[in-house]
C-alpha cells in the first residue's frame, strides 16, 4: 500500500516537479504543490478536497518520506518534542504549554519546561532511540516530533504502529538558516496556527535579509578570517562548506577556509594541519563546551598559542546556558536565525552593529 502511494507520488512529482520554482505553486489538472521559499525538505499538496503536508527525504534526493493529511485533522493539543531544538518554534507560537513529554531534562535550558518537569506536568520518556514505548502509548500525545532520520528505530516504530503521529522533522538537514526557520510553518500547520506561523516567519525573514543587506553595503575590503571547532584525539572537526554554519559565516561576511568544500556534515582534519595553518587566524568560534579560557587550556595546553586565544577572540555559543548542560542556542537559534547572524556580524565587524549586545555568543575570558 505504502509503496503504491510512493510510486504514485513520484510519478506525480516527476510530472509537475521540473518546472517548480522556490516559493511558487505549480498547477496541474487536480493538485497543486506548494513549495516553501527556503526550506527544501517539506512541501504542501493541495487539491479540491484535501491538503497534505509532505516531508521529503534529505538523503534520497528529496523523495517524499512522509505524508500527513491536514484536512479534517484537528490541531494537536498535546506534543512530545523529542529534541530541545524544537522549543524555539513552539515558544514563538506560544505553544510551550502543550508539551506533555520530553526526552529528558538533562540538556534543557528553558526554565518553564524545567519547572513543569519538576512539577510532574511533563514526563521524561527517554531519548528517541530508547524512548519508553509503554509510557508513550499510554500518554497518547497528539503529536511526537523527532529529529528526522532514515531509521525510526525499534521503539519509535512500535509507537508509530500504535497509531501515534510522529513528525519527521528535517529542519536540521536544511542548509540555509532561513530554511531551518521556515519549519515553523510545519509546526503552525499541525498546531492549528498557520497564519501566526506565516507571519512570524515573515518577520524573521525580513530581519535576516535586512541585516544581510546592511552588511553587503558596509563590508570592509578585507574579510575576517575564522576557524571553528576543536581538536579531539588528533582530529579537528570543522563544519563542511555546505553546512548551515558555513552559510551563516558567508552571510556574516567572514572568510571561512572551507567554504568551497561540498559536504554538509563536518570535515575531519588532522590537528597538525590546523595548528600549522590556522593558528594565526584572528577569530575562533565554537570550541566545544568550554566556558572560559581555563577550560580550553585544560583540554589542550597548545591552544594557548592560537592568536585568537591570545587576543581573547575565542567565542562560544553558550552565553545562555546552565550548569547542567542546557544551552539556549540549541533550543531557540533554529527559530531565530537573525539573532545568530547579528551575533556573528558583531563578532567579525563590531563597527557595523555598534549597539548590538551579544545574545547567544560570548567571548571566552
Amino acid at each position, binding site marked *: 500500500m505504502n509503496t503504491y502511494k510512493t510510486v504514485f507520488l513520484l510519478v506525480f512529482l516527476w510530472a509537475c516537479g521540473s518546472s517548480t520554482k522556490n516559493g511558487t505553486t505549480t498547477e496541474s489538472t487536480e493538485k497543486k504543490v506548494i513549495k516553501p521559499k527556503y526550506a527544501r525538505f517539506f512541501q504542501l499538496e493541495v487539491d479540491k478536497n484535501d491538503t497534505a503536508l509532505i516531508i521529503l527525504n534529505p538523503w*534520497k534526493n528529496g523523495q517524499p518520506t512522509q505524508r500527513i493529511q491536514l484536512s479534517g485533522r484537528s490541531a494537536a493539543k498535546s506534543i512530545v518534542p523529542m529534541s530541545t531544538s524544537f522549543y524555539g518554534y513552539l515558544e514563538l507560537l506560544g505553544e510551550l504549554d502543550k508539551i506533555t513529554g520530553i526526552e529528558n531534562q538533562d540538556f534543557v535550558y528553558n526554565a518553564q519546561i524545567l519547572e513543569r518537569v519538576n512539577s510532574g506536568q511533563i514526563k521524561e520518556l527517554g531519548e528517541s532511540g*530508547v524512548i519508553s514505548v509503554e*509510557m508513550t502509548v499510554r500518554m497518547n500525545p497528539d503529536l511526537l516530533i523527532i529529529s528526522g532520520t532514515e531509521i525510526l528505530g525499534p521503539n519509535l*516504530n512500535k509507537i508509530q504502529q500504535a497509531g501515534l503521529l510522529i513528525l519527521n522533522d528535517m529542519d536540521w538537514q536544511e542548509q540555509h538558516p532561513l530554511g531551518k526557520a521556515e519549519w515553523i510553518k510545519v509546526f503552525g500547520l499541525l498546531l492549528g496556527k498557520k497564519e501566526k506561523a506565516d507571519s512570524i516567519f515573515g518577520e524573521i525573514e525580513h530581519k535576516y535579509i535586512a541585516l544581510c543587506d546592511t552588511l553587503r553595503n558596509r563590508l570592509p575590503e578585507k574579510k575576517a578570517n575564522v576557524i571553528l571547532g576543536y581538536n579531539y584525539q588528533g582530529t579537528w572537526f570543522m563544519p563542511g562548506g555546505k553546512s548551515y554554519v558555513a552559510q551563516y559565516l558567508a552571510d556574516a561576511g567572514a572568510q571561512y577556509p572551507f567554504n568551497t568544500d561540498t559536504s554538509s556534515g563536518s570535515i575531519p582534519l588532522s590537528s597538525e594541519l590546523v595548528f600549522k595553518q590556522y593558528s594565526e587566524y584572528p577569530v575562533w568560534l565554537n570550541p566545544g563546551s568550554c566556558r572560559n579560557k581555563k577550560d580550553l587550556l585544560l583540554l589542550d595546553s597548545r591552544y594557548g598559542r592560537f592568536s585568537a586565544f591570545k587576543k581573547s577572540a575565542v567565542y562560544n555559543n553558550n552565553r545562555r546556558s546552565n550548569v547542567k548542560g542546557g544551552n539556549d542556542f540549541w533550543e531557540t537559534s533554529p527559530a531565530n536565525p537573525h539573532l545568530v547572524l547579528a551575533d556573528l556580524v558583531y563578532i567579525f565587524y563590531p563597527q557595523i552593529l555598534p549597539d548590538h549586545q551579544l545574545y547567544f555568543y560570548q567571548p571566552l575570558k
Partner: protein
Amino acid sequence: MNFALNRSHFVYPLLTLLLIIFFVTDVCYGTVYIPFSEIWQIMAGIEVSHGNKFIILDFRLPKALTALFAGAALSVSGLVMQTFFRNALAGPYVLGLSSGASLGVALLVMAGSFFGGLLQFGQWGIIIAGLLGSGFVLTMVMAASSRITDSVSLLIIGLMFGSFTSATVSLLQYFSIPELIQSYLFWTFGSLSGIGWEQLGFMIPAVLIGLLLSFSLQKNLNLLLLGENYAVSMGLNLKTTRILIVICCSLLAGVVTSFCGPVAFLGLAVPHLTRGLFRTADHRVLLPATAMLGAALLLFCDICTQVPGKDITLPINALTSLIGAPVVIAIIMKRNQRL
C-alpha cells in the same frame, strides 16, 4: 542408564515451569502497570482500552516470543560452536557472524549509498543488511573451511574476519555524522522490543529450522567430543558435518543478530550453565536443555531490563552480561570445588 538422562527427568519439568513463569511475568510486567484481570480480558479478546491492548498484544507479547526464540537460538549455536571448536570460550560470534551483521547494518546506516538505494531503511532494511553481512562472512568462512583441515585455524580466521569488519565499522563512524552514528549505536545495544508479528513470522521458522538442524547433528557432535581424528575413524564425515555446523550456527546466530542486534554473552554462558546443571557432555541432553535454559535466561534478563519503580528500561545487551557473568562464575567455582 545414564545419570544425566535420569537427572533430566526432574530438571526438564522444572525448566518448563520456569519458562512458563518467566514468559507470563515478562508479558505482565512492564513500565506501565496493567492489572492482571485486564491482561486476561485482552488475551480473551474482550475489548478494553486501545492503548493497553496495543501494549500487551503488539508490544509485550512479541517481545517475550522474541526473547524465547532468540535465547534458545543463541545458546544452542554457542553450544555447537564450543563442541565443534573444542574450545570453552567459543560462542556464536567466533565465526565473525555478528561482526558481519554489524558491517551490513553500518554500511546501510552510515554509508547510505552503499546498497545503491536498493535497500529501504526501516526495520526490514536493517534486517536484510544484517543478513547480507553475516551471509557474506559465512560464505568466506565456508570457503576457508573447505580448504583448512583443523578447526583452530578456522577459529582464528573467524576472529580475523571479526577484526577486519570492526575496523571497517570504525572507519565508517569516523566519517559519519553524529546522528547516524547514534542510529547505529542504538542497534548495537541490542533490542528485543523492535520485533513485531511480521518479523516474528520470519524469525521463528528460521530459528526452528536451525534448531532442528542442530538436533539432527547430536550424534555427530557427541562423536566430535572424542576428537576429530577419532570421530572420523568412527565413520563421521568431517567435511559434511563441518559445513552443516557452520550453516546451522549462521542461521541461528545470524538471524537473531540481524533481528535483535548483537545480544552479548548468552551464547557463551548458557552451554556452561547447562553442563553445570546436568553434569553431562551428552548432546542428546545438552541440546534441548541449552535451548530451554537460554530461552528462560533471556526472558529473565528482559524482565530485569525494567527497573522497578522507575520509568527507565535498560539495554538488554548490558543485562545479559551483568546477570550472566556472576552466574557462570558461581557455577564454575562450585564445580571445581567438587573435583
